[in-house]
């Protein structure tokens, strides 16, 4: 395995591990979701770059690019749907103003 692709693989795996540690250590749902939705996505991007350098066939590189695009499109949508759905049911700690409730009441 080449050095450059190995470094990309290790960096992506470290980001995934950091996301897991954050999902354990953070105190409430929204900050856990912040750790668990963003860090593994960037980790997948780095790991996919490393795999595209290492494997280096046309089919594998195309598939990896497709995977990265799909993950970048679907991960924020899923996290947003989940946080919006669970906003009313799970206690979260907010700063001084609750923008979602304010905007819904102003309609």
């Amino acid at each position, binding site marked *: 395995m080449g050095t450059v692709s190995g470094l990309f693989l290790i960096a992506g795996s470290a980001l995934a591990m950091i*996301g897991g540690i954050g999902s354990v250590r953070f105190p409430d749902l929204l900050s856990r*979701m912040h750790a*668990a939705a963003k860090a593994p996505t960037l980790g997948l991007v780095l790991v996919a770059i490393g*795999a595209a350098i290492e494997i280096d066939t046309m*089919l594998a590189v195309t598939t990896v690019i497709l*995977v990265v695009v799909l993950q970048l499109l679907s991960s924020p949508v899923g996290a947003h749907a989940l946080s919006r759905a669970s906003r009313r049911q799970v206690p979260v700690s907010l700063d001084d103003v609750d923008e979602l409730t304010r905007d819904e009441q102003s309609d």
Partner: protein
Amino acid sequence: MSSVAFVMLFIGAGCFMYRLLRGPSLPDRVVGLDGLLSIIVITIVVAASRQSSGITIETVLVAVLVGFVGTVALARFIERRGD
């Protein structure tokens, strides 16, 4: 070098598994499930590039799509379940 990556992925999978099993509410468990599927996807890509073969890399596509559909379906379920 990929052994280091596998060890870190194992630690991350353990953390997400803890959140999946111990999460105090249902959305916490969904967060754990989503993160665990991300770890699985990254592990498949690392294993494919360890062998330098792209045979197993199509399964990653299916895993990403199943993860997205599962997360959105569980979010809809949580939204509808509320009173």
